[in-house]
């Protein structure tokens, strides 16, 4: 029964033929991304709470405008650029009936120019659903293997061979979770007692060594947060008690490089502390570590940050404080020579007086339903605020990263 369809097409043709002789009708096209060419593109991505079944990754251009989007299924948290493959890699979960029925987890490879899915690998439906967005999966340096952190609540890691589009194996990681790269074939998970678990794979992706280190931090009094950032072979972490830890992870070797206070005594006194979700990022070439901070109280460690402090990891001295324009949840720095600092922020779309008036008359709680999200972009060298991005459609995301 195609006649309606055809009648519409005929109408279209008829309308087109009404046209003035010199008029050229337009034709609808589909965009591809322009050549990236070092432009400062960035992603905002995540589970879009409370719309977790409609997770997305939003790609933004140098001016903070929407370039495109990926649909990433249920409670998605992982977006990884794979430049050698020309892919964007995501971890996606689907249920046969949206929020019920059979669960399927897939690694999806998108074409990095068309943003269309080109391939998928079905993996065991076990991946960790967490609020945080980073270190839940690691791409090997040669972009051949993807390691996926599981939680069922049994803890394990699935190793996926992206070339063969196949699962290599699943290995148990009891008591340990999240993953950090330590070279081409070595990865470390953090364990509940303050030690680390090494997973060494061979060129076929099979685990050939699984070793637990000594305890490298005090897992009771001074937890590391999982938001680590890598400079060379050292991962920098911050801790719940506001220290910076440098942990060197190089192949089989893991050691504590050092531990330094994030805050001075005076700053601690003034309530300065860690803030937000993805609260560290690093610019590798310059050795600068960026940490999101706030003035708060003991249990406020995931509240939005108001400042980013920049440390020179050669000296561990604070070089800079960058005041945030809005309430910042996550930060990321690009790795080029003129790096940008991207901040994922809550934004109240009211002018100052209206905000103030609502806060005074109705109480600050009244502002909560108004809040939306967008990014702000800063010069990562001098801290200058460059722009605010487009707003996101409603639904909270917590991830930001450079292209």
């Amino acid at each position, binding site marked *: 029964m195609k006649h*309606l*369809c055809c*009648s*519409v*097409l005929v*109408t*279209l043709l008829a*309308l*087109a*033929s*009404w*046209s*003035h002789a*010199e*008029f*050229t*009708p*337009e*034709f*609808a*096209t*589909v*965009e*591809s*991304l322009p050549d990236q060419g070092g432009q400062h593109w960035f992603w905002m991505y995540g589970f879009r709470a409370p719309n977790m079944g*409609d997770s*997305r990754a939003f*790609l933004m251009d140098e001016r903070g*405008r*929407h*370039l*495109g*989007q*990926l*649909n990433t299924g249920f409670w998605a948290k992982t977006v990884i650029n794979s430049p050698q493959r020309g892919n964007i890699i995501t971890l996606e979960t689907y249920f046969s009936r949206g929020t019920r029925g059979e669960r399927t987890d897939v690694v999806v490879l*998108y074409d990095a*120019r*068309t*943003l*269309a*899915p080109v391939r998928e690998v079905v993996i065991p439906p076990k991946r960790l659903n967490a609020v945080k967005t980073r270190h839940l999966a690691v791409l090997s340096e040669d972009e051949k293997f993807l390691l996926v952190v599981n939680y069922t609540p049994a803890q394990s890691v699935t190793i996926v061979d992206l070339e063969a589009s196949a699962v290599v194996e699943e290995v148990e990681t009891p008591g340990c979770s999240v993953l950090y790269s330590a070279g081409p074939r070595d990865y470390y998970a953090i364990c509940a007692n303050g030690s680390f678990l090494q997973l060494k794979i061979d060129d076929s992706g099979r685990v050939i060594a699984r070793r637990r280190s000594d305890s490298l931090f005090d897992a009771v009094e001074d937890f590391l947060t999982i938001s680590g950032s890598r400079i060379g072979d050292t991962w920098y972490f911050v801790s719940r008690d506001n220290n910076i830890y440098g942990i060197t992870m190089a192949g089989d070797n893991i050691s504590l490089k050092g531990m330094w206070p994030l805050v001075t005594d005076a700053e601690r006194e003034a309530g300065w502390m860690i803030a937000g979700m993805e609260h560290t990022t690093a610019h590798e070439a310059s050795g600068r570590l960026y940490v999101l901070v706030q003035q708060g109280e003991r249990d406020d460690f995931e509240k939005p940050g108001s400042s980013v402090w920049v440390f020179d990891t050669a000296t561990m001295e604070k070089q800079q404080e960058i005041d945030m324009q809005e309430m910042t949840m996550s930060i990321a720095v690009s790795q080029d020579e003129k790096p940008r600092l991207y901040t994922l922020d809550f934004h109240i779309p009211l002018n100052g007086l209206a905000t103030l008036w609502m806060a005074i008359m109705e109480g600050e709680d009244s502002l909560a339903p108004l809040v*939306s999200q*967008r990014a702000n972009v800063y010069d990562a060298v001098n801290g200058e605020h460059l722009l605010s991005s*487009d*707003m*996101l*459609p*409603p639904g909270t995301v917590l991830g930001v990263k450079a292209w």
Partner: protein
Amino acid sequence: MLGKWLDNTVEHVTRRQARLTSRRSLLSRFGLLVIGAGFAPLLPVFRAGAFAEAPGIPEEGDPNHCSYWRYCAMDGYLCGCCGGSATSCPPGTVVSDITWIGTCRNPADGKHYVISYNDCCGKSACGNCGCQRDEGDTPLYRPQNSNNVNWCAGSQADVPYHCSLAVVIGVKE
């Protein structure tokens, strides 16, 4: 006079009538909410190159704003705010094959143009620059001119609706 709804709200605080802006203007701005309360409007910045597609058509206005002349029968998210333009779909989507048709007056030359509101399909709804205007819109039982239909139906990507275009396919002399 402000709309009744605004009156009521304001009354609780001021107990007086306010005469600031016409109800009609207010409601017309709220029409776009139908397809997305809490949508995110973009800055109304002109996009260089957005008009490149049809050099023969004189243009004025912002193609990323609902008031742009081509959108007189629009009901959806403007693709120019989603990684595309008024005539191009964002990356990774597909153009719907058939769609609804409107006729809009171009203020730049006073002519009426025939607009094809093709949907872009295959990703979840963009959510930016929601826009609803209903010139010539017809009910569902007359679908050819109805913007109440999900026109991604029948496209290669089926019903997942992302955003809408406004492609000039004819001119009425």
